[in-house]
């Protein structure tokens, strides 16, 4: 028949090759783990107290006072970044948790019920897509004032239609599979089928979306904090650090660089993690790019 040649491979090359092939996954997972560690560490230890104001030591460049310098109130930038990591990650995680729970529930229910229910849910999602988180935050901010709750409500509201769309699409595909048809013929009701068959099979899709939406949530939270709609001072937040840095842009540019690079790295890490997971779970996509 067809002739083919195979090359025997040494085990060390296989591990290195795995890392190369799954560079995105490895890189993303490492970066994200790093940030989570930093965030959790900040709860028990930071180089300096991030909220301690020391006017005498204000606007010190990096390495003269602390690893990354001090801001206009003399607070240590590195400590603020660490505490800010916890802030950003926790708000992002809570928003995505809210959005994922409600959105998934709506999505699988829509896929199970079909009919009018599904149509109404999808139309509502379309309408919600018209509201970017910033606008929801502005409205929520007008009512609730600024704070973590505002941010979570605003971001979470936007996550709901995203998860609803994705889970509905994925669930519909599973519903069409033959083992589900078999379960239905055996008399299982929709509720049971949803939990036993649908959800385990769309779980991977949900996890991928969680990673991607976490990245988006961090970005959005930073934007809201920038506008003053996130957690109020003195709690450190990356977005507010950037807002404060604008006044001193010419004088102390590092104040603008540090939080920005941190945000970008955190978002990049989560994006790579999401993409890497997607490639890992469905390798066919990789061939097509």
């Amino acid at each position: 028949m067809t002739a083919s040649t195979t090359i025997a491979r040494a085990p060390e090359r296989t591990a290195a090759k795995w890392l190369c092939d799954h560079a995105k996954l490895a890189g993303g997972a490492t970066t994200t783990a790093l940030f989570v560690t930093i965030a959790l560490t900040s709860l028990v230890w930071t180089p300096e107290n991030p909220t301690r104001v020391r006017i005498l030591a204000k606007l010190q460049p990096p390495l003269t006072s602390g690893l990354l310098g001090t801001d206009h109130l003399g607070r240590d930038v590195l400590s603020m970044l660490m505490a800010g990591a916890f802030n950003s990650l926790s708000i992002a995680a809570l928003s995505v948790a809210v959005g994922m729970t409600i959105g998934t529930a709506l999505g699988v229910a829509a896929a199970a019920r079909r009919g009018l229910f599904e149509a109404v849910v999808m139309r509502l999602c379309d309408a919600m897509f018209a509201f970017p988180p910033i606008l929801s935050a502005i409205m929520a901010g007008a009512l609730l004032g600024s704070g973590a709750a505002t941010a979570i409500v605003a971001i979470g509201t936007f996550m709901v239609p995203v998860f609803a769309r994705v889970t509905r699409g994925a669930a519909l595909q599973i519903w069409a599979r033959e083992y589900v048809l078999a379960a239905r013929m055996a008399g299982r009701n929709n509720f049971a089928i949803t939990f036993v068959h649908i959800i385990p099979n769309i779980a991977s899709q949900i996890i991928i979306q969680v990673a991607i939406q976490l990245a988006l949530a961090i970005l959005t939270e930073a934007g809201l904090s920038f506008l003053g709609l996130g957690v109020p001072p003195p709690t450190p937040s990356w977005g507010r650090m950037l807002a404060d840095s604008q006044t001193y842009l010419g004088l102390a540019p590092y104040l603008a660089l540090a939080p920005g690079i941190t945000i970008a790295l955190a978002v990049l890490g989560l994006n790579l993690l999401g993409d890497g997971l997607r490639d890992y779970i469905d390798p066919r996509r990789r061939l097509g790019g």
Partner: protein
Amino acid sequence: MLKVSALSVDIVGSDGVAARIVDDVSFDLAQGETLGIVGESGAGKTMLALAIMRLLPAIARPSGEILLGGDNLLALSETDMCAVRGRRIGMIFQEPMTALNPAQRVGTQIAEGLILHRSLAQREARQQAIDLLERVRIADARRRVDCFPHELSGGQRQRVGIAIALALRPGLLIADEPTTALDVTVQKEILDILDELVSDLRMSLIFISHDIGVIGRIADSTLVMLGGRKMEQGPTARVLRAPTAAYTQSLLAAMPRRTRGSLARTQEPPR
């Protein structure tokens, strides 16, 4: 007019492993002759055809020699090969439902070759497209020429595919399983059209199929392929009545008795 010598196609995977999917195939094709290439799925027939057209996927590496009227097609530059495709060789593909650009009108797609190779003006090219549609027996050609592919049936789309391949009167036509994806009643019509056009235009035809019955109907000579290798080659009548290779015998044995009988009858007066 076509002389294929020791043609092989290797697929090189991303890990460097090579698999040979066409293995040392050689054959000659005379002017006006119809060669049928028959074999099961995966035998390498389509890859052979794509190799002649130099339309293999990037991971496939051909080797050997393909002489078309004296030019070695495998040695031509891409630009020169573009001048060969469509003008000297035309190709019809297997899946009519996906072979046409859904966003372009059928007439535009037929005319493209004419504009590319002969620099015809739009109006003239359109008129020729209408003529071609009529030749492939599409009713109401003047209206149909402005249709989009999704407005046509599978059989009609395949006829458009034939029109596209024939637009420049190439000397060689390659038909890769042109009737496999169509209903049986439509198959017959397409085969009739091909038969008629090939003899009218005195073209050489390479007809690829896994259905030995169809090959028996239309081909002057037959080449049997299995696993990328040539198993047998010869005049169709001889191959079908007295096959030498074991594989050919099993192919014939696999045909339903009735079909075999009528096939034998079509082979009586040698073509």
